[in-house]
């Protein structure tokens, strides 16, 4: 009699642990799957900037909830959050892959458009190489006809600002392109000022100064810009 009573009391105590439709073994398996899916998502370092924040965060919090519910022997809830966490981890990965592919596609489209972009702002391609050259006189740079005083160099003309913007777009997309200015002027000071006007505008657009090499010499006022190693595919 005493044994029966003990058994009944024990059953009453442990009964809540067996309530619900999900078994402990299934919940454990699903929580393990969720942990693995989360680890697989975190392992994809190349996608880290493309993962959707909301889904990735949900995957993480649901995985924690699943583990907690498993510890509390609430298998239905553990299973629920584990399955959703696994799916959110995979959804994040898929969305990350799609986002990265979209970015790659846009970059390649941009690279494909490099030749017409550069041609539209006055650059000519040297054969089928990755070298482009454009020569810009005072009219093109400053919209003036006469050589200015060396201490009164005007601001870039509107057209040149547009050219610099387009050029900066290409240079920002292709970090390996090297830029060389061959500036000419009535004096070397003039030439240096002309080169400096364009160089400053490019730096303002995010181009590193170290990428631009400047040579100056006396000659007809102009700046010849050469781009080497342009990727045109």
């Amino acid at each position, binding site marked *: 009699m005493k044994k029966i009573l003990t058994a009944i009391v024990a059953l009453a105590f442990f*009964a*809540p642990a067996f309530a619900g439709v999900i078994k402990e073994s299934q919940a454990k398996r699903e929580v393990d799957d969720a942990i693995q899916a989360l680890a697989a998502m975190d392992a994809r370092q190349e996608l880290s900037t493309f993962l959707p924040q909301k889904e990735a965060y949900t995957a993480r919090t649901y995985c924690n909830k699943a583990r907690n519910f498993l510890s509390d022997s609430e298998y*239905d809830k553990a299973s629920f*959050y584990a399955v959703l966490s696994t799916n959110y981890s995979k959804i994040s990965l898929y969305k990350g892959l799609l986002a990265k592919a979209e970015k790659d596609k846009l970059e390649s489209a941009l690279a494909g458009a490099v030749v017409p972009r550069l041609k539209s702002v006055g650059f000519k391609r040297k054969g089928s190489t990755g070298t482009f050259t454009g020569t810009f006189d005072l009219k093109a740079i400053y919209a003036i006809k006469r050589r200015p005083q060396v201490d009164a160099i005007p601001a870039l003309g509107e057209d040149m600002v547009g050219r610099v913007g387009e050029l900066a777009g290409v240079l920002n997309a292709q970090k390996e392109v090297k830029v060389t200015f061959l500036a000419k002027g009535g004096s070397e000071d003039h030439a240096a000022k002309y080169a400096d006007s364009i160089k400053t505008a490019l730096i303002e657009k995010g181009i590193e100064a170290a990428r631009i090499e400047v040579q100056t010499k006396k000659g007809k006022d102009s700046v010849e810009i050469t781009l080497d190693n342009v990727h045109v595919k």
Partner: protein
Amino acid sequence: MRQQKISLIVLVLSTILFGIGCGSAKVADDSPDIFPSSVEKADADAAIADAQTAYNALGEDGSAETGKAKEFLDKAKEYANDKEPEAAWAAAIKAKSFCALSKLARETRSAGLK
């Protein structure tokens, strides 16, 4: 002896009632943001309808994810028939989640991404 029998019956009855109580109690659940503390039949039916719509939109494509969506949708319907709204609701939400996953998986595979 008679008193012992009565005590035993009372204890058995109280144990059964306690077990039933624990199985169906609508205890306030403060931590999860989507698993509700109480699921009514209408909630389960609505979740099943949503999952069915998502599954129909997906169409059978033979993928593992779609297979899982169908499996959980069928389970949800079974639980609903067995008058277990909470289990039906949870299975329906899982089915819906697999539908979303399947849709993205298909898109990713067709783009040749891994």
